[in-house]
Each structure stands twice: as C-alpha cells, then as structure tokens.
C-alpha cells in the first residue's frame, strides 16, 4: 500500500467515525495537556528559583559554627582558632577538579553604617547597622553594566591629602586611622543583590512612600553615591581605629552581592579589616564561593569542603531543586494516570471500530490487502488520533499557561522575583508531550491492531 493510499484510508475513516475517535482522543488530549502544563510550570518555577533566587552551579563554604568557647578557654586565650578560612584551605579547594573558579569573600570585621540615595529617591535613607563584605572583582565583573569598574579605587593611585577638601569634589580623602597622610580616592564601588532591590521595591518603598528603583536606574551612568560610616554603628565601636566616613557609589546589581547588605571590592575590605580589626581579618576569608563546572559537581565540592572543616552556607538551592523535581514527578504521575485512562479509552473505541469493520477488513484482504496493510491502517488511525490529541493538549497547555500568566500579571500583587511567566515550554517539552500522547494512543490501539490483523477474510466475508 502506498502512503497516499494509507492517507486516503485514514482520511475516509476520520470523516466516517470522527465523533467516536474524537471522544476516544479526548483522554489523550487531557493527559497530554496535564503533562505539558505541569512540566512547563515546574520548569518555569525551577528557572526562576534556581536562576534568580538560588543559583545551583555554585556553593558558598564557610567555617562550621563552633559552640561558644567555655569560660576557661576565654580566660586562657587558648582553643580559639582565628576566624575565617585558612589560606591553604582556599588554595586546596580552588584546585578541586569540580571547581571552575574560587572567589574568597571577606565580611566587614568592624561595625559600619550607610546613608544616601537622595539622587534617585529624593531623600537620604540609610542604616546605622550595615552588613557588608568584599568579593573578588573578577566574580562581579560580568554583572557590571555601567561605566564605573568594580575595583579598589586606590589601585589607580591618588593625590596625597589629609582632609576631603584636599581632593576633587567627587572624591574623598582615604585616610586610615593610624596614618598621618591619606590618598585621594574615587568613591568606593558598591554592589547590591537583586534580592535587596526587590525587597526595597516590593516591600520598603511602598511602605515608606518611596519610588521604586528600576534596575536601569541603579546601574545607570555614575550611579548613586552615598556615605559609608566605618568603625562605628548602633552596636558600638570597632576594636581599634577611629570612626570615619568614606564616599561610596552604587555601581551595579549582582547575584554575588550580599543578600541584605553592601558588597565591596575585596582589596578595600582587606585594607579596612586590617585597619579596624587586625591583620588576621585581612588574610582569612570569611567564606569561599566556588563556581562548579557542573551542578553535579556541587556534591563532591561540598564534601571536599567538609574535609577542611567548612560547610555549605546555604542548602536552599538543593532543597528547592529536589522539591521542584519531586513536584514535577508527582504531577507527571497524575498526567500519566490520565494518559493511561486515555489509552484505555482508545483501546475500547478501537476494539469497537475493528469489530464493526470486520467485513470491510475481510473485503480489503480479498481485494489484495496484506495483513501488514491492515496493521498500517489501524495504527495510522491511532497515530492520527494521538497526534491530534497530543498537539491539541500541548496547544491548550500553552493557552492555559498564557491565561495563568495574564491573570497573575493583572490580579496577583507584586512579590519579589515575580516572573513575567511562570511557565517554560522548551521545544523538547512540546515534542515530548505530543509524542507521549501518540505513544499512549498507539499503545491503546495495539490490541485492536492485533485483532484486525488476525481477521480471517473468508470468515469475515461470511457465506455471502
């Protein structure tokens, strides 16, 4: 039988028993719909959660929290290892085969505050208690969209000074506590996390009647300058050094920034930690961010960290990944059950169809059809029903996803990381879900196909 003849036979059958076949195909449609919808939702959720909120191909290690030292240890001054990660451990971990890059982070070892924002939000806001850290400029470089680089401003040198007025108006005098003379410095570049921007926009700004910060506004040329207060905060003064103010400038938004705080170039934090705490606070990173070669390497990297007495700072990424994956699996199981029901429908309808077409099949055989031709006919019919049901199911899933996104956009309040779409329909999902529909339709029809092939033409045509 030629493909043309097969197509003609299938077309004739579709126009003759279209109603029954559409009913039979509905289960396939519903199952494919559910499969495509749920998986797309899962993929969308995973993309938002793991892409923006909890990245998965990186892990941040920090020293294991130790129990409070006893009074005796405090008195004798023994048993108190210096804080942070030993440089040798950093060295070993950055050579781990699963690690693509290692970026030490250093927390401020002294109290600080920050005030500013007049340029973009109309009045100064700030905190007397700022969390801040320093990261290697290389980690952040790709995220800096504006013209101001994220690096130690003193690296380019500066004129000698003793007060800010010795310097250009945009600069300040970087004068360490114990130094007689300082150096003029451009404002220290600062980055913040998209999380902080979201929190500000969706939480703080509405509550205090402040305008929202557009990402472009934050990252635009020259950025926003503000004042950092070093060495003193609400909680008290630093162990050493004098409190002083420095100029800082917001130069970008990066996932590598501290969630709720400010992040500065590592060399700057090293200098200031030395100034306000001591040399050991400059050489031992408080945590180590490791970008792994693949997400699968995270586990072995974490294990290597454990050998150095380090633990992952945040297992949320993995928790979320496992949660999303198991939710997708569960919902796919529901969709699979629907598909099985759909296949049962198909099986029933095709069984009826074949017994109704018994004589016709016998006639075709007498007129020259091989059993293979009969098999091709019934299978092609099942494929047609499966393709129609599968494509309609995937199509409906996309329509439903679009509707959900539309409703979410218009009816749900803004929340941090609210995505433009909750769904992701990669090509493989579209093709795969439709293929599942076809597969279940064909599987359902297989029994009927066997029966059709086995029909004895002589018997089917009867004594007539």
């Amino acid at each position, binding site marked *: 039988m030629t493909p043309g003849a097969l197509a003609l036979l299938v077309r004739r059958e579709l126009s003759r028993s279209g109603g029954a076949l559409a009913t039979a195909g509905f289960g396939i449609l519903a199952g494919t719909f559910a499969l495509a919808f749920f998986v797309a939702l899962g993929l969308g959720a995973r993309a938002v959660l793991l892409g923006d909120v909890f990245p998965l191909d990186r892990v941040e290690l920090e020293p294991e929290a130790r129990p409070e030292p006893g009074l005796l240890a405090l008195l004798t001054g023994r048993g108190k290892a210096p804080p942070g990660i030993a440089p040798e451990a950093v060295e070993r971990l950055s050579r781990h085969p699963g690690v693509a890059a290692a970026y030490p982070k250093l927390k401020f070892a002294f109290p600080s505050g920050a005030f500013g924002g007049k340029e973009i939000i109309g009045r100064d806001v700030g905190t007397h208690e700022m969390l801040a850290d320093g990261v290697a400029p290389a980690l952040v470089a790709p995220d800096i969209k504006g013209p101001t680089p994220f690096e130690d401003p003193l690296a380019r040198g500066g004129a000698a000074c003793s007060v800010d007025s010795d310097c250009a108006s945009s600069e300040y005098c970087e004068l360490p506590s114990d130094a007689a003379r300082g150096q003029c410095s451009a404002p220290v570049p600062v980055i913040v996390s998209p999380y902080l921007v979201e929190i500000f926009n969706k939480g703080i700004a509405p509550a205090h009647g402040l305008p929202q910060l557009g990402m472009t506004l934050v990252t635009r040329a020259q950025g926003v300058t503000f004042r950092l207060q070093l060495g003193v905060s609400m909680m008290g003064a630093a162990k050493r050094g004098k409190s002083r103010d420095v100029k800082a400038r917001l130069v970008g938004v990066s996932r590598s920034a501290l969630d709720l705080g400010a992040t500065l170039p590592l060399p700057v934090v090293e200098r200031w930690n030395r100034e306000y705490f001591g040399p050991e606070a400059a050489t031992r990173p408080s945590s180590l961010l490791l970008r792994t070669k693949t997400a699968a390497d995270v586990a072995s990297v974490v294990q290597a960290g454990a050998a150095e007495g380090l633990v992952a700072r945040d297992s949320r990424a993995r928790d979320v990944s496992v949660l999303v994956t198991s939710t997708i699996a569960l919902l796919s199981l529901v969709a699979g059950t629907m598909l099985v029901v759909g296949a049962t429908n198909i099986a029933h309808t095709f069984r009826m169809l074949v017994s109704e077409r018994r004589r*016709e099949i016998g006639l075709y055989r*007498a007129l020259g059809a091989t059993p293979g031709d009969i098999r091709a006919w019934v299978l092609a019919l099942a494929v047609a029903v499966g393709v129609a049901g599968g494509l309609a199911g995937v199509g409906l899933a996309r329509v439903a996803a679009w509707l959900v996104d539309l409703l979410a956009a218009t009816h749900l309040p803004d929340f941090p990381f609210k995505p433009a779409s909750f769904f992701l329909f990669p090509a493989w999902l579209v093709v795969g879900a439709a293929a599942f529909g076809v597969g279940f339709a064909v599987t359902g029809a297989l029994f009927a196909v066997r029966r059709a092939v086995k029909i004895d033409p002589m018997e089917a*045509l009867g004594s*007539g």
Partner: protein
Amino acid sequence: MSVPAYELQAVSRTFGVGDAARRALDAVSLTIEAGEVTAITGPSGSGKSTLLAILGALDAGYVGRVSLQGVDLASLDERARARLRAQKIGFVFQSFHLLAHLSVRDNVSVPALFARSAGDPASRAEEVLARVGLPGRSRDRPDALSGGQRQRVAIARALFASPEILLCDEPTGNLDRASSAEIVALLVREARERGRAVVVVTHDPEVSSRADREVSLRDGALVEAA
C-alpha cells in the same frame, strides 16, 4: 491450448481438530479452464465456499496441490498471495459487500488502494462501470441502487484490475429472476469476450444451466456430473 486457470489435485480441507474435526473438502481434483464459466453446485454445507476460498488464495490451510496458471499456491507467502489476489483474481459475493460510506466510483476503485495500478483510478472506475451497464451512477451511494445494480457495481469492482479469474459466491442469491439473468449474462460475456476463467458457486439451476461446465460437491467430495 494455454495453461489452465487452475489445477487441483486431491485437495482436502479440514476444520477443527480431534473430535471436532470436520472435513469440508475431501480429495477434490479438478481443472478449471480460462474463457469458461464453471458452475460449482451442491447442497448447503457441501464445501462450495471452502473451495472458492482456496481458489482465491484466501485459505492456505488445505492439503493437496493447487496451482494457479501453473504456480503452486503453497509456494507463495502471505504477501505474494495478497499480490496475486490484487492482480489476478476478482471476487463477487452474494451480499455484494459494498461500502456504504463510499460513492459507487470509490467502491469500484477500492482495489487501487492495495495495488499499483497504471492510470487514474476514477477513470478506470468509469470504464468498468460502463462495461457492467451502469454509466452515470458513479456519484451515487450504493444504497440508492437496486440489488441488481449493486451486484453490477460489485462486478465492476471485481473487474477493476482486469483479473484473469473471477470467483463468484452465489452472485445471484439475493436477486430476482430478471436481475439474476442480467448478472449471469454479464459473467458469461466476461468469460467469452475477455477469456477470463469465471467460477460461479450457485444453487440456482438457471445459473448453472448457462455455465460451460458444472462441478457438483456433496459432503466435500466431487460428484461427477455430466
């Protein structure tokens, strides 16, 4: 003389096994010539349809030897038998077996679905419909036709691929006398003019009297007739 259409040697067919076994054909030996109408007669259950199915290469479960134009049917596999049916054999049935959802023309050209035929199936269908005396009815549905006309459509379908053999099982069984006579005349003409071997299973003495030769079966065995 050319090769006979069929040669049968000691052909037997048993249905069922053990106690339920029933011999439907019993050592039938027979030659069927091209260009002749051969009538197969006999009481109900005597094995006529069984014989026709074997001749039509629809039933390969016999013992003995059946050759069609010198080719041993037992040497052919399922596909080859299907091709043989498509190219060399036309079937006509008592209850016509027309497909109600198709027009007359599409019914006639159903064989084109399973065999490569040269030319346009629709025009070939018109050709054979004219030949059986039904020009101009090709767009009708079968249920718009009388019994005699339906059987003509069925014969047109059987003639579609110009087969050398026509196998007819009680072709007039559902028809009135006048229609029967027309159908028989059509079949006789196909044998005479086109040299086809026409085999007609029939109860009807009117039909067998028009045949060139009559073969009688009783309990699956040949009864030598005149």
